[in-house]
């Protein structure tokens, strides 16, 4: 229900408002949602609703959704578009969009997002985001940009698989993640290998 209202609303947003409607428009609704949040959620390990990586055109490079908040590809892409429009011009690292907490980070031409429920502990989501970014940074030898990432897609797939499993945080230590992804020996230069392993 809420998401329905949202999607119609945000569509209207796209057509009627200019590009500057952006972030604050999202905030307005988010605030309303904020003020009527129910008390508490059931204690659960399920923390992450989605992990996204978009390029600087807002196109999906990687997207993994862990629940049915956005069941169809169409809804997912619409959400990604919305999220990108509202975050790509600012360097602030957290926002509340469509009733979800979004933590994000950008580097050169990549945008990393970790999405969780608005009741979720923001710092937990942040831990996931940092772990993902730091792991990739090590695997790509600090060269975190679109081209390098595309050339190492399997590394990315494996890393996310080690960090989150079905919405549960599996590992939050980038060293461990890089170790477990275990790209072939000749992949990591000797010096770094000694540091990481």
């Amino acid at each position: 229900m809420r998401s329905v209202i949202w999607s119609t609303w945000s569509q209207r947003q796209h057509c009627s408002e200019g590009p500057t409607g952006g972030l604050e428009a999202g905030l307005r609704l988010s605030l309303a949602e904020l003020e009527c949040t129910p008390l508490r959620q059931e204690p659960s390990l399920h923390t992450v609703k989605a992990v996204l990586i978009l390029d600087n055109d807002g196109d999906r490079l990687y997207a993994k959704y862990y629940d049915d908040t956005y069941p169809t590809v169409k809804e997912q892409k619409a959400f990604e578009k919305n999220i990108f429009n509202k975050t790509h011009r600012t360097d602030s690292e957290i926002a509340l969009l469509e009733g979800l907490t979004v933590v994000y980070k950008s580097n050169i031409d990549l945008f990393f997002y970790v999405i969780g429920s608005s009741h979720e502990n923001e710092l937990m989501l942040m831990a996931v985001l940092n772990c993902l970014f730091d792991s990739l940074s090590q695997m790509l030898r600090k060269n975190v940009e679109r081209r390098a990432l595309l050339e190492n897609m399997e590394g990315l797939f494996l890393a996310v698989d080690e960090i989150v499993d079905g919405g549960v945080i599996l590992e939050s230590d980038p060293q461990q993640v890089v170790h477990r992804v275990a790209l072939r020996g000749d992949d990591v230069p000797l010096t770094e290998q000694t540091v990481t392993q």
Partner: protein
Amino acid sequence: LGCYDVISVDVDAPQQEASLHFGYVEVAPGISKADSICRRRPSPPVKMIKKFDKKDEESGSGSNPFQHLEKSAVLQEARIFNETPINPRRCLHILTKIIYLLNQGEHFGTTEATEAFFAMTRLFQSNDQTLRRMCYLTIKEMANISEDVIIVTSSLTKDMTGKEDVYRGPAIRALCRITDTTMLQAIERYMKQAIVDKVPSVSSSALVSSLHMVKMSYDVVKRWVNEAQEAASSDNIMVQYHALGLLYHLRKNDRLAVTKMLNKFTKSGLKSPFAYCMLIRIASKLLDETEGGHDSPLFDFIESCLRNKNEMVVYEAASAIVHMPNCTARELAPAVSVLQLFCSSPKAALRYAAVRTLNKVAMKHPSAVTACNLDLENLITDSNRSIATLAITTLLKTGSESSVDRLMKQISSFVSEISDEFKVVVVQAISALCQKYPRKHSVMMNFLSNMLRDDGGFEYKRAIVDCIISIIEENPESKETGLAHLCEFIEDCEHTVLATKILHLLGKEGPRTPQPSKYIRFIFNRVVLESEAVRAAAVSALAKFGAQNDDLLPSVLVLMQRCMMDSDDEVRDRATFYMNVLQQKQKALNAAYIFNGLSVSIPGLEKSLHQYTLEPLEKPFDIKSVPLATTPITEQKMEIAPVATSKLPEMLAPSRQDIYQEQLASIPEFQALGPLFKSSEPVQLTEAETEYVVRCIKHTFARHMVFQFDCTNTLNDQLLQKVVVQMEPSEAYEVVHYIPAPSLPYSQPGSSYTLVRLPDDDPTAVSCTFSCTMKYLVRDCDPNTGKPDDDGYDDEYVLEDLEVTVADHIQKVLKPNFGAAWEEVGDENEKEETFALASVRTLDGTQFEYFKKADACAHREAVGNIISFLGMQPCERSDKVPENKNSHVLFLAAVFRGGHDVLVRARLALADGVTMQVTVRSTEETVVD
């Protein structure tokens, strides 16, 4: 073709291996090689690929090697999985492409997915680590698309129990993805071993996979509790966290077990911050359920977490305390001070988390947050707008009246930097603030007028205009400044809706200000400059000035004359009409046609007119036969969240009364009664928890009343039939007809009706009490099947008495200009009486010490009582009693059944009790009584 592929690959492969240090870099050469293969292929789609690839190569570094992947081409390539020997690099690349396509949301058909899946299983023969890991991923991704995924079970089981630690964790996760309950039992032994494995990644994988399996096979996973328990004491922080999560999910329905577990872990202490967060959540849930007091050890535990080293845990604990119901200010204090520290953190996420939680505290305990005001003010300029908005709205909730000026100044510096939708939030906050501190209206008004002058879209301007209008309505002193600001605004306003709204307001309020003439200029400017709709509204507003102020009348008439030359029909019509009415110089005409418009329900009018045109009668159309508009419940603008407003507009649903009208008209016995005059709110005739629940709605017609009894049978072993509510009137009312509800099965409401004729000879007998008894035939029935016995017995059930009061005969109408209507009705049928309101006096007496407060209270109480007793509509906001006044005049307007206007002026004076002098005027004599 397939052969070609393979041959060229095999030839190329060694050379590549030699030339490239690292397999991933082969992407570009790989594609150019694919190109060379493609060139030999005739099919058009492949040619397309070739073209795109070329373009990509030319465009250089910006290219995406996956951008123009074709699913069919990739699946074609997947055939090389079947070749011996396996080329790991090439296969890895193809698997990556497949997963990439799945990730992009590409749809794979069952057949093609199954085919690829089976080809992939062959890759288990290779010992390349990365390739194997990608196979696990492919299995997981395809688990729901492909058929017969279980064929890889044995390979995965082998990897999960093998020597390679790198394989074991991911193999467990992939295996659990494709396993069902029966197969789970087969691997149960391995799962138990894996949970307690000393390698953290294996243990974590097994625990998390078990957690996912709980939903499907609770009974199997339940048997692994001991292993999970052992894992919980692991040194690894993630294993600890996952074990705790699994244990809780297995035990969450057993409160005692959860309590024990909590005790154990809170005492032993954990290393993992994640596990601490989980513990805090479990503890606060348990506190919530057991309604444990805040002296419980669980609360102490949560509080102790405020001193944890890890910010994540500290925040979780603070948030848990803030969200507890009935938290006292003292208990909140430590949590708030922790959050206060976070407000100045360099991490945006932490600042956000803190201010968001403080915002929640401020809703219930504004005073608890005041200590953080300084920190919050620093956040107003935060580069993250989420944080800034939250800081502002929190401050507006917590700020004291004295700080409002300073806050407003701060906000004005801020407002210009942000965009419209965000400003609307601020305007709404200001609007709420105005209600809280009415005395600050001058500051607000200034601020709002400045905002009104800035650029902005319609939504934003509308929010400001609405806010100003509500301030004007709340504070009579602010009326003139407010109107002046609005006049200035319409001088340059591109929004027709807002301009007409303001013109209407000017017409209503302007004539009664000390200097009405100054508004004329603004209004007439609109006639000269604006579009048709605005011009028409301006003409109506002008007419109101002319009708109310005799000295302005000549000039208004001159202006009207000019308007009669307008190019638009509607404007000309209005001008001509008003011109003629005004020239009569009769107060009654002015009142009826200029101040107080039609008070009928618009859908009702439409229906009646349509009916009339279908069957033209000899006599003219009678407006009194049209049902009256029920006055809308006063809007509570401030409480409607923006979400609601965005979906509400233009929802012109038929009113409740129109629905009843339809329902009743469908019953043949009631068709002759004429239009429905009024329907009351439902009255409960039984207690809420009884066997049968009955509520009554009173429908009033010109000479009759229909009582609609909505009955619900709450017994699942009974079927009621022929349900009738028998009514014994106390006065001269006469029961004409009963319409029974034929059948009343369990929990399905049904309606029975009773028609009563109102006494004609004595129109003063308006109130009456009916004693009601419900009579029915009971048939016992089977609670499960609902099948009734063949025979039943008669029974009856006594209901509470039903009262008919004056309010049922009266429909509220809103007369925007009460004074004019009062004069219009005249004093022919006037009656004056004085009452001392006894009930109010007692209230006054008890609150004697708070004299001033009681003063206003008594007034309000009295006013409320009168309104609800008479069921009339208060006019000109006379229902709001200003404070510190000893007397008050209440204006009420309504229509008596049959269409006679009734106006009541009640003067209330406060002496020892409240004395009320009621003056009633009506268009018909009998009604006055």
